[in-house]
């Protein structure tokens, strides 16, 4: 039949109205039918002369089930399916509200399953799969030097030159130096991470400026290196993203440079992925052999020369990383044979591909976590399936009843399905929220040293996958019991009250096994989390040798342009100390070369009077340079002698304070006080030991302290030939250290308005950052432990509930024969407890084996720590038992009459 447009519109209008006015329409329909019956009754009364009551009864009989006709009346309208959907959804919400336990368990399981999977996969993706911002990362390597006990160390200029001549495995090699530099002449003075790069470096990395140009070869030469490339965010901050910044001048560490280009936003140097931060200024290295202390050409100075550079290289076509490393090993052993490096095994060269360099150490851990997460997703799906199954079983009677009352089977199936959809939608929405929360938390808590992990973003593809998997499971398992329940012969189901549930035995067995596995997994993860908690607790309890609370720190770097010599540097810090000392609330103030736990400290060769190192060895000490007041400011413990004070000046006798380690190692059996030390050079003067302090955990709380000496800042020129220009100021206060930030800064500015202040933070922050990795592992494992436990709870709840439902008849009989409710509860509990016990036992054994993998992560606690294991088992056991008890209680409430009545 041809459709005229107007009719079509009118039809849809009617349908739309019908859809939105459903309750009103229902009423109209009912009224219309009531009228019909009444009219019919009158007619019957009139024609057959019956009483009104009898006539009405007959009219009703003739009319039949009004409900069914209403249904068919609705069916006749084509919006029927939409109306049904809306009413099914309303019905589902209503029934779910009546079963809050089921609704909460199902949505929670979905939310956690979807959320955890997505968040964690996003982390793995960002760390391992996200493309790196380099042109050819697979064929670009970082080259490290090092002796065999010290891998991954800096390179000397001679060694870099060697790389360009000898091994024919690279087609380009770059070398660079990194430093924090003060930038002035572009608004607010600032300290930024800067790299001085050889001309080929950006070419090696396969990156180019997004604005302007790369350095020219002639610009990478001494005297001409007055150009600079800006990092994207620096350009944004100081030039508001204005392209005309190119051609302008900025002062890099007091030296004027022309801006020739801006790097793209994604730009990173290969080592920018650790805690150091992103490089924001690039200047030419402009190295010469003479100022690098190197021999021109391929020759290498004895011992390699001065090490302090980083090197990157691009593999020649067809060369693999393994081949490159073979060749590098050959070159290294040749140099050792030629006697360039003292003793055997004192030198090695290693090429590490960029991907491995940036996230290599994370890969195994992330892969393990990814496995755990996949498992979690499977468990979540299984749990939801189980919950829906139990629910289907429990509603068999209701379903059968409604089927006899005339509800069509597809309609009933659809109602179950709609309920599944509602759960899936709510669970999915919560899941997305959990995923987002997980990503935000990872961003907030991931230590920067985890590199790319800190830059994680929610991965849409994974979210879609997790949603599809879980929702697919929900729909599948919502439908299965619906079909099973509706296929059931209604009269039979009503008669035997659901004894047919025993056909689910095999499925029950599978689910019981699953629950055992879930509990075991929970135990393993909780043990893991517990071990990390104990580790963090243990580390926090370590005495670092200083008192971190109440100390504010900041870094200052004095440029040669305005502070040409050591005396001017010392004068600046003296003036600053005296000004800050007078600020209200300040107890002590001092400056130090490196703050403990803030930066790794290297060592310096020393000669100790009266001590001869064993052949082939030296007597090094970590070098800390401080101003008077440092020991008081940091709260160090004096063991013997005295601390530095204002008497110790550039002009007074040279003095050292040494650490206990140093005293033990080099002054064994002697009184260190009065002993003499000189730094590894014949031209420098001897210094006298005046004090011994307790060891400070400088490199890490968990590291064995190295021998360390403390020198006076103003005396270092005489002792080592230079005065450190980058120092950290530490201020001890009785109040809130951050409240001092502004006043102290004002004092810095009062002396030198051009002086930028960097790394303003409290000592407490530094300490807490130093264990960020462990804390992150702890949070991650603890979160997973809780997640696994929750899922196990849902699983065991579902199984026990199913068992109780299936044994309703049996319980009825038992109750009728005199079993007390308590006995019935005990019987049902026994099943759940058997699985709990099995899960705990398997979990304990698995944890014992798996936590061995955590050997490198834990500190101060054995991976088989009894307390942790017992606690994990107790927690899991108690929680699992509680989860059993809830549904088991239902067994005690079985009413023998109703359970048996239908027999």
């Amino acid at each position: 039949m041809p459709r005229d447009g107007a009719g079509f519109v009118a039809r849809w209008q009617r349908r739309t109205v019908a859809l939105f006015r459903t309750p009103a329409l229902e009423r109209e329909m009912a009224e219309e039918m009531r009228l019909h019956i009444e009219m019919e009754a009158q007619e019957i009364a009139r024609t057959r002369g019956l009483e009104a009551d009898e006539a009405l009864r007959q009219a009703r009989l003739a009319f039949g089930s009004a409900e069914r006709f209403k249904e068919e009346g609705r069916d006749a309208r084509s919006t029927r399916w939409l109306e049904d959907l809306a009413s099914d959804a309303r019905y589902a919400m209503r029934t779910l509200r009546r079963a809050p336990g089921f609704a909460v368990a199902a949505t929670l399981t979905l939310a956690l399953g979807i959320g955890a999977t997505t968040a964690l996969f996003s982390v793995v993706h960002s760390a391992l799969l996200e493309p790196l911002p380099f042109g050819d990362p697979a064929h670009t390597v970082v080259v490290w030097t090092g002796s065999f006990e010290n891998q991954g160390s800096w390179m000397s200029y001679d060694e870099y030159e060697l790389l360009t001549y000898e091994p024919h495995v690279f087609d380009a090699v770059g070398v660079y130096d990194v430093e924090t530099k003060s930038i002035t002449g572009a608004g607010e003075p600032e300290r930024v991470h800067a790299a001085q790069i050889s001309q080929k470096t950006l070419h090696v990395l396969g990156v180019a400026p997004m604005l302007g140009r790369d350095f020219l070869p002639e610009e990478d030469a001494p005297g001409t290196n007055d150009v600079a490339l800006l990092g994207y965010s620096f350009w944004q901050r100081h030039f508001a993203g204005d392209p005309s910044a190119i051609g302008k001048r900025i002062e890099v560490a007091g030296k004027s440079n022309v801006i020739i280009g801006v790097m793209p936003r994604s730009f990173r140097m290969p080592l920018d992925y650790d805690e150091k931060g992103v490089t924001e200024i690039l200047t030419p290295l402009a190295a010469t052999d003479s100022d690098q202390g190197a021999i021109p050409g391929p020759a290498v100075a004895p011992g390699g020369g001065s090490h302090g550079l980083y090197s990157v290289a691009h593999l020649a076509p067809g060369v693999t990383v393994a081949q490159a490393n073979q060749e590098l090993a050959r070159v290294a052993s040749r140099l050792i044979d030629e006697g360039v490096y003292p003793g055997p095994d004192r030198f090695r060269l290693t090429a590490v591909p960029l991907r491995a360099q940036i996230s290599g150490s994370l890969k195994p851990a992330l892969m393990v976590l990814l496995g755990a997460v996949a498992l979690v997703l499977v468990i979540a799906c299984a749990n939801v399936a189980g919950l829906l199954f139990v629910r289907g079983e429990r509603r068999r009677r209701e379903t059968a009843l409604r089927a006899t009352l005339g509800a069509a089977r597809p309609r009933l199936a659809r109602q179950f399905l709609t309920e599944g959809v509602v759960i899936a939608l709510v669970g999915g929405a919560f899941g997305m929220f959990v995923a987002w929360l997980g990503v935000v938390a990872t961003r907030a808590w991931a230590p920067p040293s985890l590199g790319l992990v800190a830059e994680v973003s929610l991965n849409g593809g994974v979210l879609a996958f997790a949603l599809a998997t879980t929702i697919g499971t929900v729909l599948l398992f919502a439908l299965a019991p619906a079909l099973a329940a509706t296929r059931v012969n209604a009269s039979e189901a009503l008669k035997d009250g659901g004894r047919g549930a025993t056909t689910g035995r095999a499925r029950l067995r599978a689910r019981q096994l699953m629950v055992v596995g879930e509990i075991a997994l929970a135990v393993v993860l909780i043990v893991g989390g517990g071990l990390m908690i104990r580790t963090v607790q243990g580390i926090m309890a370590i005495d670092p040798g200083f008192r971190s609370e109440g100390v504010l720190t900041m870094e200052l770097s004095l440029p040669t342009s305005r502070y040409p010599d050591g005396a001017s540097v010392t004068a600046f810090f003296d003036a600053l100390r005296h000004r800050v000392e007078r600020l209200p609330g300040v107890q002590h103030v001092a400056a130090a070369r490196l703050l403990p736990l803030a930066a790794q400290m290297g060592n310096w060769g020393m000669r100790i009077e009266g001590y001869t190192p064993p052949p082939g060895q030296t007597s090094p000490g970590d070098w800390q340079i401080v101003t008077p007041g440092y020991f008081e400011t940091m709260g160090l413990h004096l063991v013997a002698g005295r601390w530095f004070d204002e008497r110790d000046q550039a002009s007074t006798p040279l003095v050292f304070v040494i650490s206990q380690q140093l005293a033990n190692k080099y002054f064994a059996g002697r009184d260190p006080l009065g002993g003499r030390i000189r730094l590894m050079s014949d031209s420098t003067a001897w210094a006298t030991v005046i004090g011994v302090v307790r060891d400070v955990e400088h490199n890490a709380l968990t590291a064995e302290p190295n021998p360390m000496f403390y020198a006076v800042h103003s005396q270092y020129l005489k002792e080592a030939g230079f005065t450190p220009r980058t120092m950290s100021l530490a201020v001890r206060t009785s109040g809130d250290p951050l409240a001092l930030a502004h006043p102290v800064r004002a004092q810095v500015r009062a002396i030198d308005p051009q002086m930028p202040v960097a790394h303003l933070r409290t000592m407490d922050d530094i300490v807490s950052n130093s264990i960020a990795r462990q804390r992150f592992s702890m949070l991650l494992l603890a979160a997973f432990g809780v997640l696994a436990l929750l899922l196990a709870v849902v699983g065991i709840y579902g199984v026990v509930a199913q068992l109780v439902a299936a044994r309703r008849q049996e319980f009825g009989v038992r109750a009728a024969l005199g079993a007390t409710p308590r006995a019935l509860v005990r019987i049902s509990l026994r099943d759940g407890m058997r699985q709990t016990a099995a899960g705990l036992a398997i979990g304990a054994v698995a944890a014992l084996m798996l936590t061995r993998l955590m050997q490198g992560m834990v500190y101060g606690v054995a991976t088989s720590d009894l307390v942790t294991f017992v606690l994990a088992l107790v927690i899991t056991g108690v929680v699992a038992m509680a989860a059993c008890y809830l549904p088991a209680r239902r067994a005690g409430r079985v009413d023998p009459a109703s359970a048996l009545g239908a027999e």
Partner: protein
Amino acid sequence: MADRADLLQGTLDLLILKAVLPAPLHGWGISKRIRELSYDVLQVNQGSLYPALYRLEDRGLIRSSWGISPEGRRAKFYTLSAAGKKRFAEEKANWRLFMNAVEQILHAT
């Protein structure tokens, strides 16, 4: 449900359209009218009547409105729409064609 077979598939629609052709009627009125017009031969089962009414209304062949019945009751009255009239003419022609064809077959010797 044997009584449903009393009416040939599709004839109910035709009868309803015919019943409401002269004047608006409510549901019971339609069933009564069909019964009377057929001299009690055709009994319209209520279970078929109302779905058919809603179906016809949904297709725009009849329109409904609430009014007061001759008995003084609020009732839903069904009226033939323009499309309904057109459809009635078509259906009537179809039915005649069909009837004649069946008659000819039955009279064939």
